[in-house]
């Protein structure tokens, strides 16, 4: 996984609540391997007509938002299915940060596995940031500094954010989860032995 650095970019204001994973990536694309690249299907049915031409009304197709790498969303972004493909699509399209007042829990966890930073802000602050971004489309730059855990936006917006330190470290260093976990292999094995002894009914059973 790529190391996460400070991000400075135009931000897309997306004020719709409950942006679900079916909208982010419709189910009919999910059988493709990740290596096919999922960016081309991001928000497919919102962004593209059936003939593949862009829908001019959708914000990702509008200037100056084509180059944005940050989304300022609403509540419950990424709700719905567990499909990590939703994160693949956002990352492959070029997004690095999504800011919302809440996320679908599984989407939130999946984001860290692919180097997408999901930031939770209290609703009032989120709306303030989104409105500042909306009022300054051409200069609506937002800076996200993960090391300092700080967001800066238009009109002097500046606020800190929380992140679990273990996840922060993994993002900053681009660490692989499985490799990290296997450094605890002895503890895992010991736990498994004790667990099996305490719960013998879970041992394999011939059926």
């Amino acid at each position, binding site marked *: 996984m790529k190391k996460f650095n400070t991000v400075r970019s135009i931000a897309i204001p997306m004020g719709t609540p409950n942006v*679900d994973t*079916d909208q982010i990536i419709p189910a009919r694309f999910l059988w493709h391997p990740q290596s096919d690249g999922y960016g081309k299907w991001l928000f497919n049915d919102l962004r593209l007509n059936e003939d593949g031409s862009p829908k001019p009304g959708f914000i990702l197709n509008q200037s100056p938002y084509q180059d944005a790498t940050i989304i300022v969303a609403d509540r419950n972004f990424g709700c719905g299915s567990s499909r*990590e493909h939703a994160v693949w699509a956002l990352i492959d399209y070029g997004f690095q940060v999504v800011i919302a007042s809440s996320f679908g829990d599984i989407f939130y966890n*999946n984001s860290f596995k692919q180097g997408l930073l999901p930031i939770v802000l209290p609703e009032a602050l989120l709306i303030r940031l989104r409105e500042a971004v909306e009022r300054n489309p051409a200069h609506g730059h937002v800076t996200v500094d993960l090391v300092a855990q700080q967001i800066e936006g238009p009109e002097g917006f500046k606020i800190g954010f929380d992140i679990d330190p273990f996840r922060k470290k993994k993002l900053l260093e681009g660490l692989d989860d*499985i490799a990290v*976990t296997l450094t605890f292999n002895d503890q895992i094995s010991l*736990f498994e032995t004790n667990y099996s002894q305490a719960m013998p009914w879970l041992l394999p059973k011939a059926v």
Partner: protein
Amino acid sequence: MALAKTLFEKIWDRHTILQQSDGSTLLHIARHLVHDGSHAGFRTLRERGLKLRRPDCTFGTPDHYVPTTTRDMATIKEEGRRNVVTSMNANAKEFGMTMFGLDDIRQGIIHVVGPEQGISQPGLVIVCGDSHTATHGALGALAFGIGASEVTHVMATQTLWQTKPKSMRITVKGQLTAGVTAKDVILAIIAKIGAAGGTGHVIEYAGSAITGLSMEGRMTLCNMSIEAGARAGMVAPDEKTYAYLKGRPYAPSGKAWDEAMTYWRSLPTEAGATFDKEIELDGDEIIPMMTWGTSPEEAGPINGVVPDPADISDPEKREALQHSLDYMGLKPGMHFTDITVDKVFIGSCTNSRIEDIRAAAAVVKGRKAKIWAMVVPGSGLIKAQAEAEGLDKIFLDAGFEWRYSGCSMCVGMNGDLLNEGERSASTSNRNFVGRQGRGARTHLVSPAMAAAAAICGHFVDVRTLNPGQEP
């Protein structure tokens, strides 16, 4: 004296391998359930030269991509999709997990098969690369959905890094009235707390209306915890749970059963234990429910009307509601019972168990469907059971299609989709934009309500069709 603990805390603590100073916890995974959509995990294991750490704890069955008109995989036209299903057999063989393939009567939707086989048991941490894993919480387990990277992580390490979620108790008091089901209860809960109401929480459902539910009903309830935003949903194990498990193929037996029972009986939340959030509903007041919009929180009782955006002061919320109504093709003030339906789908991990099929059949018996409708049982065993009871005949005589098991039109990955603009009465779990096909309009209801819509061609309070249940 030790602090009183909740069911959730007891399971969490029992599966904690280690906890770091920042609170992140490495959890042991007792059961990993996989389906055809989990294929990427096996590919990564192979690429990285890793083993499936605990084949004995890994169980799978193909469900998302399987055809429901036949068991012949050759009928899956696109090679890529077909490979997703067929590669599962090869993966099971190579990595040694237990697998119920398409040629096995035990095949079905993974969240139906786990409990049915006795694989899902009280007091376990159960995960699956599918958001509806919360279903297994009905047995008193901590069960939650995970993404593809976490699936691979579990395959390789039998563990997951988790931050302890908050706890919420939803108490449904009283008793449900005749004709009201677990589906109506969960839709009423989501309508009350919202689609993000449970975010970051594990829900324990409690109260007399919950303990009064059958095991199938509890599965329907826990299944849609994710639609309330929750990580997991659970019901404390009780005599119904034990009776359900007894004699199931993978459930313990003999001396092992007694040992398990000692653990299981220690699990329920103790008096005095506290939750981060408490919600209460009155079960007597719930009536059959349906969704009218494009989020599961956009639900209301069947005697209701489509809401009016003009009544909402917040401009963004007003616009969102207008958006929902435009997509759904509905006008403010319309009575739900005046909404006509094009197609009916009875199935999915939410509502495809034998009790669901019996409830739908009871409505359909001796009547004819006015519109296209199909029933997709949750497993081969349920299909066989329903056929032994003659339920397939009831549906076929009424003009319904009777299919093989799979996820089918809940998510449409196998091609079971609605056409653009078509409106469904669906017993599934998500009414998202495009969920059942591009431009498709989904209304979520219980199996009995779906059956009633098929008979009438529009939504109707199913209780008006059942003598003795009239409201």
